[in-house]
């Protein structure tokens, strides 16, 4: 049989067909995730006349976008979903306390290699870091998944992104992926399944690989996978909720391959108002900032908080800067708290938020006024994303954001650190 890509293998298994790139298949879904927009899913689900969920054990619901409820409307939609969860006895529900979906689901062992996962959130691609095929879908089609367990999907072509060499000190997965998006453009991987491979990926921690898979949607990818290795297995072994099969592309399977030498990569920054507007930090150094945000499904993990704390080292941030930190999950919060990282960040002047998405999407907790400028570890800098459409958002790594908070202007972490 001809060689198959990772995407073709997962979608062949899920559809029971010999799926090839370009085919449209009806696939059985292994796991379906929704956050607050479960309220929208629920509305469509009822309008469809659906009676019950096809498989309660395959649905995960949680709240993370507006937690604790930011407005009365948000509180109402939380309540609607809670009531449904109770009535339907959905076993896998995480209320406002657990944190950002894309951190919580892997932590709780829901995400396993080879799975087909859909979520009503574009950054569902994050789960690719564990060798799953994971993609974002809309609320109405999620309702159809709840009702039938199936979804039509076009089998994507494959793009192999090789990170050649290992990243230098003070450059991170975020810098690598920003460089890739800057070079390929905001639609450079449209509809594709991206496979991140090479020495630079092998050397990354699980957290770093999650950054790659998370951000691949910012160049239009349908999914972005890092193939499991010993680090993945060590992460999954104590928490995996069931057995799994490792799936990887066959030698000689179809796909274009692009090389990126990351061995001398400097810290990168995406300028307003698009994620592909990427330059080396040297080109934007000295631009004054009003706010710095460390958090989100992209860079709110322990490794990120430790990196930021390493830059700040208890020193006070600039008087003119509001530093906001949101650990990605309750587990991260506890770990960072017990390690003294949160206390150290607070001593530097950081406002520590509860785990959640809040500021990243401009929902609440730190919106920007017209004319203000923020540097953030998040994933989107679209106009109006974090508040006023007259505000500006720059994207960077936790180290670069921390260095910038310290100086009150966009700064190169290599100049702050020893």
């Amino acid at each position: 049989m001809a060689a198959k890509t990772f995407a073709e293998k997962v979608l062949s298994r899920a559809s029971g067909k010999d799926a090839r790139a370009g085919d449209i298949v009806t696939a059985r879904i292994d796991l379906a995730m929704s956050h607050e927009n479960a309220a929208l899913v629920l509305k469509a689900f009822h309008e469809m006349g659906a009676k019950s969920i096809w498989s309660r054990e395959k649905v995960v619901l949680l709240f993370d976008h507006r937690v604790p409820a930011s407005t009365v409307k948000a509180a109402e939609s939380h309540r609607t979903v809670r009531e449904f969860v109770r009535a339907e006895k959905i076993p896998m529900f995480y209320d406002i306390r657990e944190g950002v979906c894309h951190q919580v689901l892997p932590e709780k062992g829901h995400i396993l290699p080879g799975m087909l996962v859909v979520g009503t959130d574009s950054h569902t691609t994050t789960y690719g870091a564990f060798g799953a095929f994971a993609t974002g879908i809309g609320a109405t089609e999620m309702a159809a998944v709840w009702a039938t367990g199936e979804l039509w999907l076009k089998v994507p072509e494959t793009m192999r992104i090789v990170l050649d060499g290992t990243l230098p000190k003070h450059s991170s997965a975020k810098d690598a992926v920003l460089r890739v998006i800057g070079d390929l453009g905001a639609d450079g991987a449209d509809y594709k399944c991206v496979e991140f491979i090479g020495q630079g990926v092998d050397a990354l921690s699980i957290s770093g690989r999650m950054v790659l898979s998370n951000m691949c949607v910012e160049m239009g990818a349908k999914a972005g996978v890092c193939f499991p290795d010993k680090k993945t297995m060590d992460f999954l072994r104590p928490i995996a909720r069931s057995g799994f099969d490792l799936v990887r592309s066959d030698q000689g399977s179809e796909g274009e391959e692009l090389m990126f030498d990351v061995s001398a990569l400097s810290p990168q920054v995406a300028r307003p108002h698009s994620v592909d507007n990427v330059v080396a930090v040297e080109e934007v150094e000295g631009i004054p900032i009003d706010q710095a945000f460390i958090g989100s499904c992209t860079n709110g993990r322990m490794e990120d908080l430790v990196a930021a704390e390493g830059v700040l080292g208890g020193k006070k941030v600039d008087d003119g800067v509001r530093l906001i930190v949101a650990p990605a999950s309750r587990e991260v919060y506890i770990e960072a708290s017990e390690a003294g990282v949160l206390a150290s960040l607070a001593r530097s002047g950081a406002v520590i938020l509860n785990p959640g998405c809040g500021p990243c999407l401009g929902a609440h907790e730190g919106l920007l006024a017209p004319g203000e400028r923020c540097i953030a570890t998040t994933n989107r800098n679209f106009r109006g994303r974090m508040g006023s459409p007259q505000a500006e958002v720059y994207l960077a790594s936790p180290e670069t954001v921390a260095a910038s908070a310290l100086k009150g202007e966009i700064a190169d972490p290599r100049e702050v650190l020893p």
Partner: protein
Amino acid sequence: MISGRVWKFGDHVNTDLIIPGRYLDDYSLKNLAAHVMEDADPDFPKKVRPGDIIVAGRNFGCGSSREQAPLALKHAGVSAVVAASFARIFYRNAINVALPVIICPEAVGLVENGTELRIDMERGEMEVMGNGARIAFKPLPEFLIRILDEGGLVAFTRKKLQ
């Protein structure tokens, strides 16, 4: 047959421009329509008329999976979106809420703001009213046309479940 007046936009019109996150705590369609595209063009929500057609460049609808983006456009009266290309989740969402989407890079250079356009989804052809220019495009796969014709995925699935 769809016909209406053109609003032109550029490349990479993202979901935050279509409907910003700050309005998403309220799922009412009236609220969404009142703010649709306001960060791209503050006049749009005030001046858009039923039947109007958006013609845009590459990667329309990139960003979030929020279905409120096509919903807001539809409920503001937009009858179709023509673009050189679409981001995948927006494209799926639009069909699922019965907002016709057409991939047609050629259209971008041939229409202006205010041009009257007539679109035949089944035949894969649009006509620029006034100068009579005709532009061919690849029609949607038949099963997606069926979802549009049913009025969206809700009605389509309701039928299937019966």
